[in-house]
Structure formats: structure tokens, C-alpha cells
């Protein structure tokens, strides 16, 4: 890894010199060094994986995070189960992307590519510096212990396995547009080229960051046993913040692409997104804030803080210096237009991000300024974010109806009328039946409203495509027409489908307002009715699964006299951990989840359970399908300006 570090430094020097002297050869050399860095880091990563798979406990990191009885799959994924290894994974992904950028864009972005690569290599440099100096995963230890500490049982879960890599893919992928942005600022070449080239990277980053967060939420839901999936924990907020600015960025670059405005603002957004991803890592690793995700606190915090400050100062300074080159020309726009809606969208997202940042960091402020120790947890965030989220959903729906330059209010009203009623009627019904809080009514109502608008737009665009094909006079059959309409217009469809995913997720979140919860103790043979189910204590069980001994209760789930299922919540005893883990048992259905957690098996043979009924929660996981489909559609779109001319 030391050699990779040296190479990264070399690449930077070479690139800088190459730019100065405008020498093609130097830049070529830098390109090769990118590949070499990738190879070297890859080797380091493979070495670490190998050490894990072979139970090589002479490597300190392996000893701390693995044990001989760990299942093979988890041994492989334990590489990113601790800080050192996950930093290596981060660097590996970055090296891979850097090499890709170096190779792929050499023809299209020649002017700013060297600068871009400098930025990317600087980030690599920082990570490698950390990896060599402060958190070397390959450090050895003597004497070699016979057994390792084992992987934290909480991490032995499929969702947890993919959660960090997905997040890292997202974070690193956001560095690419960032690097391009800084590159173009450095070079002074400030057209919109970089946005077009990096569009797919931005989408890619957004998708994986979203997936990473959903995986994390799903893991929390299944593993932590309190029936919830998002706790507004500082570490969770750390990943939410770059997501929020990243989403804002995703939308506002469209404005820059189509209308050539908001150029300085987009720079600010991408700088913010990248910086926030560093801040997220800082919060996670520094121990400054209390969190459920508390890892072993490391002294790596200051390094990240310094890196963050340096990045911010440098980027913002550069932006300030070059700002005159970025001013947009004023163009005519009506008050009610897509462009302004996007602006509003940005404000909403940025305010959300600010609120999350503010709430997360406020305890420190309170201690410093007012000498008070405060807790700011879920209740605060839920209260404050709800109205803003409602605003966001409404905006999401309405924006589809707007034209870029100007839209008459009459047109807007006409188009929103039916969806509005379709949304209001169920909400009135819900209100009368259940009397939920107003946030739920609004959130649910706006979600349905937006959903209707999205569906209508999808149908319209398909009809338009079919109509266009017919006009052109293409002799095509129904099947081909269908296929054509499905495949065309990737960007618009992609966006619509992803928005549909957001609508689905919002509906799932609305279900949380109706959560039921109860706790009770019962003896073998006894029944207790919870919600629409009857739970009968069948028997105590004990069994071995993988590397843990499980003690639990088999519970029959009965509805209307019919046996639906047998759920077995357990307490798992891992040899490497003194405290048992609570593994919940869940019965999923479209309407709701029946979620049972074993609190205790008592001396007298009775069992104490916490039972939750979570309505609509599976809608949240279902939204993933929309995200995937929408992502594929969006990625298939190539901006007009970049398409090769068809035999002109």
C-alpha cells in the first residue's frame, strides 16, 4: 500500500507538470499510474480478504473482527466490518473509479481531465495516508492469538453486509462530479460539459446512496428489535445529509443543462455534497456524538476534520475566485414554471439538510454556549421534518405539470383537479375512521396526489410516443409499439418511476402513524390476542444455527381460528459475546407486519414478549423495485449534446 501511496503522489505531480507543460506524455503516464494504483490497492484488499478467509490472526484487524467459527460468507464481508478495512474498501472503489475516469474520458474531456484526476488522486492520497499511518488493516501483531474476537453478531446479517459497500459506492461516485466541477473551475473552462459527462455518475451515486440507506433501515428494523427503521441517529443523519444535497444537485443540474442557469449554485451543491459525505464519516468515526452505531472510538476524527476544512476552503475559495466566469444570463421566465419549481425544490432540500445538520450538531452548541447537556432524538426530528417533507412531496407532484418557461395557473388547476380529489376522498375517510394526526393526513394525501400525477404523466408519455410513431408512419405491430413506448424517453420515465418509488415509500411511512404495540407475559398453552391475531404459546425451543445457540419461543399465529404461521423469536448466544442478541420474528403481509421480540424467558417457564403491529411498512421496501427500474431507465438516457451524430 505504501507503493500505492507513492504512486498517487507521483500521479499528482505528473499531472500538474503535464498541465503546465501541456505535455501529452506526462498525462499519459498519469493515466497508467491510475491503473497501477488500482492494481496495488486491489492486491492489498485481496490480501486482507485472504487473511480473513484463512483465519490469519497474526493480522490484528482480522483477529479483532473474525473468529474461526464465523461462516465463510461473513468472513469475506468482515473486511468492511471495521474501520480500517472499510477505509480500504473506500479507497479500492475510489481507485477503480479514478482509473475508469482516466480511461473513459480521455477523448471527451481533454481539457479538464488532468485537473479532475488531480482532485481524485488527492482524495486517494488522503485515504492512503490514513491507511498507511493511522489505520492500517494489514498491521501484524505478535504473539498470534489462537482465536479471534469474532464479528459483532449484529453485523452477521445479509442486509448489513451490503449496506456499507452500497453507501461507499454512493459516496465515492459523488466524488466524480465533484472532481470534475473542481477540475473545470481550476482550468477555467466553465461550460456545461462536465455536467453532461457526469450525469450518469450522479445518478449512480444517488441510487447507491439511497439503496445503502434503505438497506441500513431494513437492517435496523430486523436486527435492533424495537420495531422501527430510522432513528435520526447522528450516524444515520450523516448519510442523509449528503443524500439531501445530492438529490438537490441531481435536480438542479437539469436546470443548468436545459436553461443554463444556477451555475454557481450547482457548484456550491456538489461541493456541499462531497463535504457532507466526509462529515458523515467524521461523525461516524470520531465519537463526538452519541450514537447507536458507536464503533470503537478512534482518534481518526481530527484527520477527517482537517481534510474537510481543507477541501471546503480550497473549493469555495476557487469558486469565489472564478465566480465571474459563472454568472448566468437572465432569461424570461414566468413565475409559475418548472424552473422555479426546481428552485423551490432545491430550497426545500437544502433546508431539510440544514435542519438535520443543525439538530445533530446542536447538543455541541448547547454545551459550548449555554453549558447545557441536551438530547435531541427522534421526536424532535420527526416533528420538524414532517411539514417540510409534506412540502417536498407536493412539489414533486406538481413540478411534472409545469412547463419550463411558463405555465398558466388555469392549466395547472385543470390538471391537478382530479388527482386532488382522488387524494382528498381517501384522506377524509381515514380521518373519520381513525383520527390520525394532521401530519399523516397531509403526508398521505400529498403522496396520493403526487402518485396520481406521476401515473398520468407516464400514461401520457406512452400515448404520445405511440401517437408519434403512428404519425411517422412506421409500420409496426402492437408488440413493437409497446416495446418502443417502454424503451423510449428514458430520462423522463426514469424520473417518473423513481418519484413513484418515493410515493410508495411515503405511503409506507404513513403507516407508522398507526403502529400498535404491546408487551405481556404468558405461559405455555396460553393465548393472547393482539390486533387481529391471536398468539398462542406453543413451546420453548432451543437450537443451534451457524455459530450461535438460540433459545426461543415458538408462537402460533392464529387469525379467525385459522393457523397462519408459527413465529419463533429467539435470544441468540454467540460464544464471542457475553450478551445475547435478540432476534425478532416477523410475519410479513401487504397490509402490515406482525413483529414479535422476545424480551425474556423467565425462571418459571413463562415468556415475556414485545409485540408490534406495523401497518404498511412493506411499502417502504417495495419502493426499491421502483428505484431500480427508474434507475435503469435514467441511466439509459444520453444527453442530446453527447450523442454521436447519425450520419449527417
Amino acid at each position, binding site marked *: 500500500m505504501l507503493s500505492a501511496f507513492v504512486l498517487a503522489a507521483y500521479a499528482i505531480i505528473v499531472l500538474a507538470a503535464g498541465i503546465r507543460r501541456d505535455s501529452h506524455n506526462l498525462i499519459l503516464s498519469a493515466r497508467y499510474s491510475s491503473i497501477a494504483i488500482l492494481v496495488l490497492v486491489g492486491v492489498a484488499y485481496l490480501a486482507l480478504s485472504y487473511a480473513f478467509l484463512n483465519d490469519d490472526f497474526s493480522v490484528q484487524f482480522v483477529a479483532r473482527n473474525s473468529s474461526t467459527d464465523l461462516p465463510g460468507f461473513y468472513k469475506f464481508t468482515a473486511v468492511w466490518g471495521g474501520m480500517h478495512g472499510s477505509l480500504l474498501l473506500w479507497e479500492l472503489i475510489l481507485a477503480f473509479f479514478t482509473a475508469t475516469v482516466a480511461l473513459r474520458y480521455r477523448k471527451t474531456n481533454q481539457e479538464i481531465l488532468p485537473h479532475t484526476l488531480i482532485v481524485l488522486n488527492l482524495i486517494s492520497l488522503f485515504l492512503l495516508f490514513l491507511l498507511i499511518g493511522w489505520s492500517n488493516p494489514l498491521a501484524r501483531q505478535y504473539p498470534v492469538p489462537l482465536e479471534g474476537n469474532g464479528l459483532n453478531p449484529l453485523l452477521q446479517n445479509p442486509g448489513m453486509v451490503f449496506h456499507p459497500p452500497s453507501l461507499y459506492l454512493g459516496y465515492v461516485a459523488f466524488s466524480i462530479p465533484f472532481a470534475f466541477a473542481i477540475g473545470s473551475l481550476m482550468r477555467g473552462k466553465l461550460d456545461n460539459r462536465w455536467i453532461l459527462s457526469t450525469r450518469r455518475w450522479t445518478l449512480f451515486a444517488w441510487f447507491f446512496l439511497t439503496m445503502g440507506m434503505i438497506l441500513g433501515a431494513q437492517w435496523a428494523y430486523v436486527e435492533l428489535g424495537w420495531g422501527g427503521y430510522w432513528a435520526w441517529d447522528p450516524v444515520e443523519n450523516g448519510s442523509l445529509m449528503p443524500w439531501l444535497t445530492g438529490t438537490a444537485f441531481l435536480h438542479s443540474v437539469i436546470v443548468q443543462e436545459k436553461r443554463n442557469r444556477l451555475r454557481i449554485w450547482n457548484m456550491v451543491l456538489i461541493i456541499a455534497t462531497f463535504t457532507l459525505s466526509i462529515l458523515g464519516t467524521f461523525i461516524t468515526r470520531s465519537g463526538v456524538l452519541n450514537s*447507536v452505531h458507536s464503533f470503537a472510538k478512534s482518534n481518526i476524527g481530527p484527520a477527517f476534520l482537517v481534510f474537510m476544512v481543507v477541501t471546503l476552503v480550497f473549493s469555495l475559495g476557487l469558486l469565489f475566485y472564478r465566480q465571474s466566469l459563472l454568472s448566468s444570463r437572465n432569461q424570461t421566465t*414566468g413565475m409559475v414554471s418548472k424552473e422555479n419549481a426546481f428552485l423551490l425544490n432545491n430550497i426545500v432540500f437544502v*433546508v431539510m439538510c*440544514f435542519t438535520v445538520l443543525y439538530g445533530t450538531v446542536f447538543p455541541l452548541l448547547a454545551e459550548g454556549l449555554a453549558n447545557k447537556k441536551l438530547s435531541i432524538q427522534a*421526536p424532535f426530528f420527526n416533528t420538524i421534518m414532517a411539514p417540510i417533507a409534506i412540502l417536498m412531496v407536493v412539489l414533486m407532484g406538481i413540478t411534472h405539470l409545469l412547463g419550463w418557461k411558463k405555465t398558466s395557473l388555469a392549466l395547472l388547476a385543470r390538471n391537478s383537479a382530479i388527482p386532488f380529489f382522488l387524494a382528498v376522498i381517501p384522506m377524509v375517510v381515514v380521518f373519520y375512521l381513525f383520527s390520525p394526526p394532521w401530519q399523516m393526513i397531509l403526508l398521505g394525501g400529498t403522496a396520493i396526489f403526487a402518485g396520481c400525477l406521476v401515473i398520468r404523466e407516464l400514461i401520457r408519455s406512452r400515448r404520445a410516443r405511440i401517437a408519434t410513431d403512428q404519425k411517422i408512419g412506421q409500420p409496426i405491430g402492437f408488440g413493437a409499439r409497446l416495446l418502443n413506448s417502454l424503451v423510449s424517453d428514458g430520462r423522463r420515465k426514469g424520473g417518473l418511476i423513481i418519484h413513484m418509488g418515493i410515493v410508495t415509500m411515503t405511503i409506507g411511512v404513513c403507516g407508522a402513524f398507526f403502529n400498535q404495540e404491546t408487551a405481556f407475559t404468558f405461559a405455555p398453552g396460553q393465548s393472547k390476542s393482539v390486533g387481529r391475531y391471536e398468539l398462542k404459546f406453543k413451546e420453548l425451543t432451543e437450537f443451534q444455527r451457524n455459530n450461535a445457540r438460540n433459545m426461543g419461543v415458538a408462537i402460533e399465529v392464529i387469525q379467525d381460528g385459522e393457523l397462519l404461521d408459527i413465529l419463533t423469536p429467539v435470544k441468540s448466544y454467540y460464544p464471542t459475546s457475553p450478551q445475547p442478541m435478540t432476534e425478532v420474528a416477523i410475519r410479513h403481509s401487504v397490509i402490515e407486519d406482525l413483529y414479535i421480540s422476545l424480551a425474556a424467558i423467565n425462571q418459571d417457564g413463562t415468556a415475556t414478549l414485545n409485540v408490534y403491529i406495523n401497518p404498511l411498512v412493506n411499502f417502504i421496501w417495495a419502493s426499491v423495485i421502483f428505484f431500480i427500474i427508474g434507475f435503469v431507465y435514467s441511466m439509459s438516457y444520453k444527453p442530446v449534446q453527447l450523442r454521436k451524430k447519425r450520419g449527417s
Partner: protein
Amino acid sequence: MNTRKLVLFLIGISFAGVLFGSEEMENRVREIAHMLRCPTCQAMSVKESDAGLSLNMKQRIRELLEEGKSEEEILQFFEERYGEWILRSPKKEGFTLLLWTLPGLIILVSFLILLQYLRKRSRETAGIDTSPLSKSELRQIENDLKQL
């Protein structure tokens, strides 16, 4: 092994209290417990936590409710002993008022700024006529095009 039995037993006897409360009482206990932070946990509410201290607190809440205390009085009871830190959502007074009002203020201010900005822009471009073309203008244009 003994420790495990001990812990289970402790939890068991503490949970004995649950059997004696009614459903509604338990819901109220949970509601209030959800507003308090578990003192020994990293970042959980008293409701979610099964730690010894949390179970004690839940029992205490139950007793206070049975005495007829209101939610506010119960929260105050714990705040007096643990400090404001025990509340999961800071109070809306004093220094923390800043916390609650700032996001709303920022939205308001940014909307106002946006409005200003848009008005200024539309004023600047007011001279440009964007109304739809009249019939005579359209005919003129068509003639011109035909001549090309």
C-alpha cells in the same frame, strides 16, 4: 451462566409489574417512556430499552400515573433529577427555542428572498413581449416564409 440467569430473573421480576397494569395504563406508560431517554443506553428511549434503569423508570412512571400525576408533572419529575438531558425532545423555551424556530425561520426567509428575486427578474424582463402572436402577425410570418 449464573449471570445470565440472574439477568433473566431480574428482568422477569421487573416485568411482573406489567401483568398488573391495564392495557390503557400500559399504553400511557409507553407513551411517556418514549419521551424519555434511557440513561445508560447509547441513544435509545426508555420505552425501547430493557436495561435495568429503564425498567425502573418505567415502573416509576406507572406509579406516578397511578398517583394521578399528569404527563407534564412526570416529565418534570425526571428532569429535576436528571437534567434536561433526559428529555428526548428539548423543551420549547429558553436557549432551545433557537433550535425549534430556526429551521422555520430559514424557510420563511428563503421563500421571501426567492419571491423578491423572481419579482425583480420579471420586472427586468417586463419589456419583452411574450404574449401570443395575433392573427395578422401570423399571416405576415407565413407570407414571409413562403417567399423564402
